[in-house]
């Protein structure tokens, strides 16, 4: 059985303009020690999907339905107090912006110790010792003196490492990383991705990686789900997804990358015409059809279901791409 199971989850937000339907009927499963990437462009619902797990969404305006189970325990049925025991212990989060997610008035050591004192009832001294170990784990040199420093004294890459140290302090089973390297330089990014890989290998942490960067997905993920307009349009192990993408949107994203044009010797990048549909409506049709080069009449007649297209490969498309993508290594 998988560690985390999300079934038919929909998330809407009540606004003055009506219900914004951010996520529509998402299902996913996450295995122990698996790195799953949720990818797609701004507004596709990847962050909302992931944040519905630790319920880090504005309580008053969020309308959530569906079931989310962790080790068979239904997280959606938990009270807020019970949820607080889950966050940071069973499920923790690394945010994109390490500067705004750390408290500027407390030392790094205090902030790592806080989560240990909360969940593991450690003494201050024991928490400090663990904080030093955790900083060592995420590759911060001279951790014993670093724990006395404040966030502003650290570089961006170091702050993100501290965020990761806080997130993994209680050895969570699921780590949600929301664009964890987007604010970092590429030479720093490589080191941070290595830390995630290392955590998975050594502690068996399962990771949900939210990213728009298809290079990062290729580097670290085992499996990826491509989202469009609040739904999964394709899901597959990454080697399979990049070598044999079936959904025209996935193909469009891969071909739009400058590297794809350069590799193929093209002078122009492949564009995806049109724009993402507004989040207020949800017609019974393929949401990508208006922009899709392969769309036919049946695409707008009913929503294509997410169906199997080979081993562990799902795609929601009536006219999937068959050919092997040019430029991809077979």
């Amino acid at each position, binding site marked *: 059985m998988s560690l985390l199971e999300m079934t038919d989850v929909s998330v809407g937000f009540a606004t003055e303009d009506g219900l914004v339907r951010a996520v529509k009927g998402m299902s996913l499963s996450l295995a122990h020690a698996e790195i799953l990437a949720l990818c797609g462009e701004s507004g596709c619902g990847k962050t909302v999907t992931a944040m519905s797990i630790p319920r880090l969404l504005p309580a008053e305006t969020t309308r959530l339905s569906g079931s989310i189970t962790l080790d068979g325990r239904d997280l959606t049925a938990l009270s807020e107090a019970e949820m607080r025991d889950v966050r940071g212990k069973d499920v923790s989060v690394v945010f994109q912006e390490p500067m705004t997610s750390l408290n500027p008035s407390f030392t790094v050591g205090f902030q790592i110790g806080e989560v240990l004192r909360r969940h593991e009832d450690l003494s201050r001294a024991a928490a400090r010792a663990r904080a030093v170990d955790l900083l060592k784990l995420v590759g911060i040199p001279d951790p014993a003196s670093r724990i006395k420093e404040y966030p502003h004294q650290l*570089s961006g890459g170091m702050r993100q490492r501290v965020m990761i140290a806080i997130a993994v302090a209680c050895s969570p089973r699921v780590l949600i990383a929301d664009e964890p390297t987007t604010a970092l*330089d590429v*030479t720093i990014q490589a080191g941070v*991705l290595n830390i995630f890989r290392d955590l998975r290998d050594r502690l068996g942490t399962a990771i949900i990686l939210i990213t728009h960067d298809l290079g990062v997905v290729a*580097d670290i993920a085992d499996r990826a789900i491509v989202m469009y307009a609040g739904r999964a349009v394709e899901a597959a192990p990454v080697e399979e997804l990049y070598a044999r993408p079936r959904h025209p949107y996935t193909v469009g994203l891969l071909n739009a990358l400058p*590297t*794809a044009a350069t590799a193929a010797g093209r002078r122009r990048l492949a564009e995806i015409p049109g724009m993402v549909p507004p989040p207020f409506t949800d017609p019974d049709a393929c949401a990508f059809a208006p922009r899709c080069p392969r769309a036919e009449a049946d695409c707008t007649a009913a929503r294509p279901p997410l169906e199997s297209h080979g081993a562990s490969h799902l795609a929601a498309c009536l006219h999937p791409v068959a050919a092997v993508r040019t430029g*991809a*290594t077979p």
Partner: protein
Amino acid sequence: MSEPQARPKRAEAQRETHEPVLEVSGLVKHYAAGERGKVVRAVDGVSLTIGEGEVLGLVGESGSGKSTVGKCVLRLTEPTAGRIRLGGRDITHLSRRGMRSLRRDVHIVFQDPYSSLNPRFTVGRIVAEPLVRHGVARRSAAADRVTAMLGKVGLGPETRDRYPHELSGGQRQRVGLARSLILEPKLVVADEPVSALDVSVQASVLNLIADLQRDMGFSCLFITHDLSVVEFLADRIAVMYLGQIVETGPRDRLFAAPEHPYTQALLSAAPVPDPAEQRRRSRVVLGGDPPSPVRPPAGCRFHTRCPVAVDRCRTEPPDLMNRRLNGDHLTACHLVSSDSLPDARGTRA
């Protein structure tokens, strides 16, 4: 410091008779930082040239000084030392009056299409503003040129009456381009113009910039952290680290045979969107963080993170020069010579 003398194949004969559009030599920009007389050496001796119709990609990570170079070229900040020539004219110390004409010849495209457009102005007024400001056309007479310019960036005439908040990110960046290009400047400084955009929108804006550059023939200083973008767009690349250019050369050669260990690390750190390839290739993971530009290391500034540094690198700063007798490929590294190349990639991740 020697100057890059690169000449791309395109329009070579034509350029023989022309001065470079932009010529920056020995540019230095130091900022005072906080108290105690601390100085941030944001740019520390940068020389570069951009020929007519040429796109130079200026690449570097945060704090490398690449944006400061752009600001100095635009005279948005006062250089501490060095010389900047635009079309043969020294603009390093222009008066306010002189700056007005400079503003006709050099334009900028900003990174953030949300904060660089006035939310209270219509698109028509935003795009017409440079024409009015430079007395090229009255507001009333500018309409036709604005419509034509909007057409060139792929926006219909109805966009004239819209406000920035009514537009998508990609459309706003098109408006920014239209405003920058309406005076047909000689040089466009583009500072991370597509970094805030999604992949599919980025593709259409990059195609547009490439098309406009070919049609209008402006020269371009394209500043970015994203190597794949300059590989697609630039004729020549200059790589910056801690306020200095460490390597510069024609795009194809720099990507095929990077000489400086930092360039090698940068190229190998950027993940390739292909899992099989990405997991097979060996990568350089640089140790540590970039040093502070307040106290740059002695010798080669990269030596504290360089996987192949030797004793000489810690004391003697390397010149940016042609080290492998291959013309216009310049590198600031002691270890690059005509018979050897440092190979940082020997260190496997």
